[in-house]
């Protein structure tokens, strides 16, 4: 089951590196939230406890409903164009992602011979981190950078489940809160930038220095 979910997770990574629409990015965030929630919920089907259901539910609420809606709202408010404006061609971006993913899987396989980790979730999480960083490097729009950051965070989440099967709940919640605050602050910042600059592109942030 974890493997199937990890495959779906990686597929969403491919999709995000393929699509050119900001809407697609948000849809990917949503689906990744659902996948993570199911992944965390899955062990509790056989062994139910209220305590264990809290994290998946919070994830579901924050990642699937709250953050995407908020980003959508920012897009509507600020009238951001629907294209992500890549700096390199999509046909170069996707092979880059594929190549890094192959490398990551092979490296993980080698690591797993030494220490005991689940190869697939570990590698998927790792790939998500890399893809998130790539998105931040190769995209111009600031709002897309936020999405990239969130994908990276999802990757860390998956990564965490692979390293230790159960992280302490408070830490998980803390991470979630952290992310939420970051997104919130970004939204406010974007609104403010909007009022003083024309477009919202990373290239223009360089003008902020003086």
């Amino acid at each position, binding site marked *: 089951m974890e*493997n*199937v979910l*990890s*495959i779906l997770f*990686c*597929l969403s990574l*491919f*999709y995000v590196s*393929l699509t050119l629409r900001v809407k697609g990015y948000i849809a990917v965030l949503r689906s990744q939230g659902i996948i993570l929630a199911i992944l965390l919920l899955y062990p509790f089907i056989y062994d139910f406890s209220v305590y264990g259901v809290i994290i998946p539910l919070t994830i579901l609420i924050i990642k699937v409903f709250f953050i995407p809606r908020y980003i959508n709202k920012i897009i509507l408010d600020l009238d951001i164009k629907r294209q992500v404006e890549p700096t390199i061609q*999509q*046909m170069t971006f*996707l*092979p880059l*992602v*594929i190549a890094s*993913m*192959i490398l990551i*899987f092979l490296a*993980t*396989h080698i690591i*797993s011979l030494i220490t005991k980790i689940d*190869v*697939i979730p570990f*590698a998927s999480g790792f790939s998500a981190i890399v893809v998130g960083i790539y998105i931040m490097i190769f995209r111009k729009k600031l709002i897309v950078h936020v999405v990239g950051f969130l994908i990276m965070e999802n990757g860390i989440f998956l990564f965490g489940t692979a390293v230790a099967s159960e992280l302490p709940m408070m830490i998980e919640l803390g991470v979630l809160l952290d992310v939420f605050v970051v997104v919130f602050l970004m939204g406010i910042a974007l609104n403010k930038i909007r009022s003083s600059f024309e477009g919202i592109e990373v290239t223009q942030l360089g003008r902020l220095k003086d």
Partner: protein
Amino acid sequence: MDIEIIQGIISLLLLILLAPLFSGVVNKLKAKMTGRIGAPVLQPYYELKRLFRKETINASNSSFISRFSPILNFVAVIIAAAMLPVGFWKPLISFNGDIILFAYILGLARFFQILAAMDIGSSFEGMGAAREVTFALFAEPIFFFTIGSIAFVSGAASLYEIYHSIHLDNISYMVFVVICSISIFMLAVTECSRMPVDDPNTHLELTMIHEVMILDNSGFDLFLYQYSGYIKLFIYTVLEISFFNPFGKESYLVYAGIFIVIAFALAFLLGMAETITSRYRMKNIPQYLLFATAIGILNLLIFTFTQ
């Protein structure tokens, strides 16, 4: 004669004779879904009959290549069909490494079709040929990745053995095979010029891919092109259907039932895709194909490391 050879010949004949019927079914289902009555299911046969009786007209600037290419195309597609296992019968041509021959013989057909298109010297055909060659370039890796990954997992190198090695014992293997079949479906859509990649019913030369390449063919030549197009679609359908072989292990009757059901389901899917999606922009098609390859890679990576 050997029983295996007879079986092979029968399955080849089935493939050749039933191919237009499948196209008819796809078109009929598509018409139904868009609320039309649609042409009869046997319409492709009538079309072929009509084309066969027409006079052949060649473009004034064309050379021996455009006269030779339809024939070669047809023969190559039939040879490819002869390598295809239908059910548990051994195909007529089966040897170690025949998946390479299978892919490359379709490449032979494509090579000459592109040349024949460029032979006319018209920009329309040139455009179609350039698109065909670009998309074929990105479609070939999909085939090798999906079929090749099953081959490498099972250690077999012929289509018959590869499809024979599919089993239902292991759940992660089943997931693996299902995802492979998705890739093959995406490949079939491309190779047979179906909807998200190419619109078979478009009426503007500038938006065509496959149709524009045979714009200046008529009569016997067009008959051969159309017929090989039908067979090609059916070949990819059978490639897809064969993934469900293990369900029909008990008897021929069960297998025939499964064959028909899956064929209908695929026709439905193709019709559905043509109803609900629009054609992609030409620029985005390589990305779509690369996505299918990426699925194949991911699938193999995950399958290998769960062992």
